[in-house]
């Protein structure tokens, strides 16, 4: 399928209401019991679900399978069982078609030595199927877009780490993909460079012309530029949620600092029907459910001989969602 044709199938991109409602879009990535093993060791285990967001954050501790998931979706690794679809195309049978629709910014330092940035990006454009003239034109545009316009004739060997990251982003954008995988895009960047990268990701997301999957272990980066998050733990999906909806759902969220035996108190809070997470020796986070009020928590504390030294309402941050996912194990889609 030609890239030009596929792009026209997208929904109206600048409709901001549409952007906020992911159900308006067909699944970007559809995981069907996707499993990957290396040497008998399970890396991804029966991943199931539909990812529909405009910007999806892929989170997880080191070794959770984030990069393996991206590599499998790109066709670098074959699934042991199950499959996945990107824009409705099977990763095992339509890998080449899929790769014409996606851009990829690898995690590691990747470039072609002894080449200027503009030649490098042009070459990548040509390999994606752009005619030489169009590839050259778009290479210039992409490099200006990421902020390397003035340095585009310099050899990549002379670039700083931050500049190489931007050059990698430029090569991922040059052919105008519909889906962009960014693997640890802010790795090794200083604060201004990181801000610039985050701003670029947000701009692409807000343009509505491409979906983005950002893999990172830096929660702040994902929080700043993603609408949805997929948290992996030990090769399984621990959580997939819309960040904003999750925050709204957890408005009655309490952070308690206590003194006393926390374990029976936490159990009593749990028995009350509240979700909770113990985040330290004397700290517990509680999500009030339904009709339960703060005075019920005080009552339980009194019954358990527990002092509540501080109580604060708090919005559920990505860190909380992440920590909860790490404690609970599996979430659902």
């Amino acid at each position, binding site marked *: 399928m*030609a*890239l*030009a044709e596929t*792009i026209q199938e997208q929904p109206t991109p600048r409709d901001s209401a549409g952007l906020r409602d992911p159900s308006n879009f067909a699944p970007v990535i559809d995981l069907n019991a996707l499993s990957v093993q*290396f*040497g008998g*060791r399970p890396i991804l285990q029966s991943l199931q679900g539909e990812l529909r967001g405009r910007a999806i954050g892929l989170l997880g501790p080191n070794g959770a399978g984030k990069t393996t998931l991206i*590599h499998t979706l*790109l066709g*670098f*690794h074959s699934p042991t069982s199950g499959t996945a679809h990107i824009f409705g195309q099977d990763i095992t049978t339509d890998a*080449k*078609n899929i*790769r*014409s629709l*996606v*851009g*990829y910014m*690898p995690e*590691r*330092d*990747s*470039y*072609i*030595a*002894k080449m200027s940035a503009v*030649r490098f990006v042009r*070459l*990548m454009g*040509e*390999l*994606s*199927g*752009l*005619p030489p003239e*169009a590839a050259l034109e*778009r290479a*210039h*545009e*992409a490099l*200006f*877009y990421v902020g390397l*316009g003035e340095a585009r004739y310099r050899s990549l060997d002379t670039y700083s780490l931050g500049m190489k990251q931007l050059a990698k982003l430029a*090569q991922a*954008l040059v*052919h*105008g*993909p*519909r889906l962009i995988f960014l693997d640890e895009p802010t790795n090794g960047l200083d604060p201004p460079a990181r801000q610039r990268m985050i701003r670029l990701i947000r*701009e*692409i997301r807000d*343009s509505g*012309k*491409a979906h983005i999957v950002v893999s990172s272990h830096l929660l702040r980066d994902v929080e700043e530029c993603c609408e949805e998050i997929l948290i992996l733990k030990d090769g399984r999906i621990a959580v997939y949620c819309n960040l904003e909806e999750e925050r709204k759902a957890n408005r009655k969220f309490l952070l308690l600092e206590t003194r006393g035996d926390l374990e029976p108190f936490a159990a009593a809070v749990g028995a009350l029907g509240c979700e909770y997470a113990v985040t330290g020796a004397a700290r517990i986070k509680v999500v009030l459910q339904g009709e339960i009020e703060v005075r019920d928590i005080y009552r339980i504390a009194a019954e358990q001989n527990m002092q509540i030294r501080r109580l604060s309402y708090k919005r559920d941050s990505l860190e909380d969602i992440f920590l909860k996912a790490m404690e609970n194990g599996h979430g659902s889609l």
Partner: protein
Amino acid sequence: MAVYEHTYKPYLGKLTPEWNRFLVIPRHAFRDVFKSKLFTAFFVICFIPLLVEAILIYLHHNANALAILQVNVRELIPIDATFFQTFVNLQGSFAFFVALLVGPPLVARDLRNNALPLYLCRPFSRTEYVLGKMSVLLILLSTITWVPQLVLFLFQSYLEGARWFIDNLWIAAAIFIGSVIWILLLALLSQAISALVKWRVIASAALLGLFFIPSIFGEVINQLFYTRWGNIISLGALIKNVTAGLFGTFVRSSGQMVGFDGRMAREIIMNEPPLWASWFVLFLVCAACLALLSWKVKAYEVVR
């Protein structure tokens, strides 16, 4: 994504056909290769034997020139299969040095800089990558081997007449196949070594060693055991045997005088490995190179 707009814009234009996309790699590689003045100079030198070949063909058909040079036509090398075979092997040797200069960094540089994921995350397969990298050598080496040789064959046919052309068409086939064997072997070997060794200098040394060290060992075996079977491990000797077979000049048995105490001498008949064995070993080497490339050319190596 216009420069002045600074916004993300999808590409809506036409795409190039997939079948010839691998040629993007040699097109970009040639720009780097010919940046080196040393290489460009050497590449020009590679055409000198071909010029000599052209002059010899011309002299054979120009009585005036022979008269001026005071050379009898019978003193010139005859234009026959042996003549073309000699130049095929000579150009093959030049091709080896071109491959030595151009081949090693082709894949090694990409592996060293983790560039393979960038190629393979596009609608561009591993096969196309290898084909693209090999095309750099295939095109360069073709321009100094079979392409000019066939032009010279046509030149000789033009001067000699249509009858000679028809009678010797098999020589053209031998030129083409003999040169392609040289080119394929050199391209595969240099790519395989380049994929195995990430450093250019070491890869060049390995390619040089692969050609010359087994040849030395082979010659030692030949001398020690009064045989020619040592040539089975010498790539140069194998190609020469195969091209000799193609040009119909392959002689399997040859005699060598062996002296005893300085008084007596006897002739020992030594047999070259049969042609099929030479073909078979070359095939094995090519297959091993392809297997190595298939093993090494991957977006990411999986640590199991």
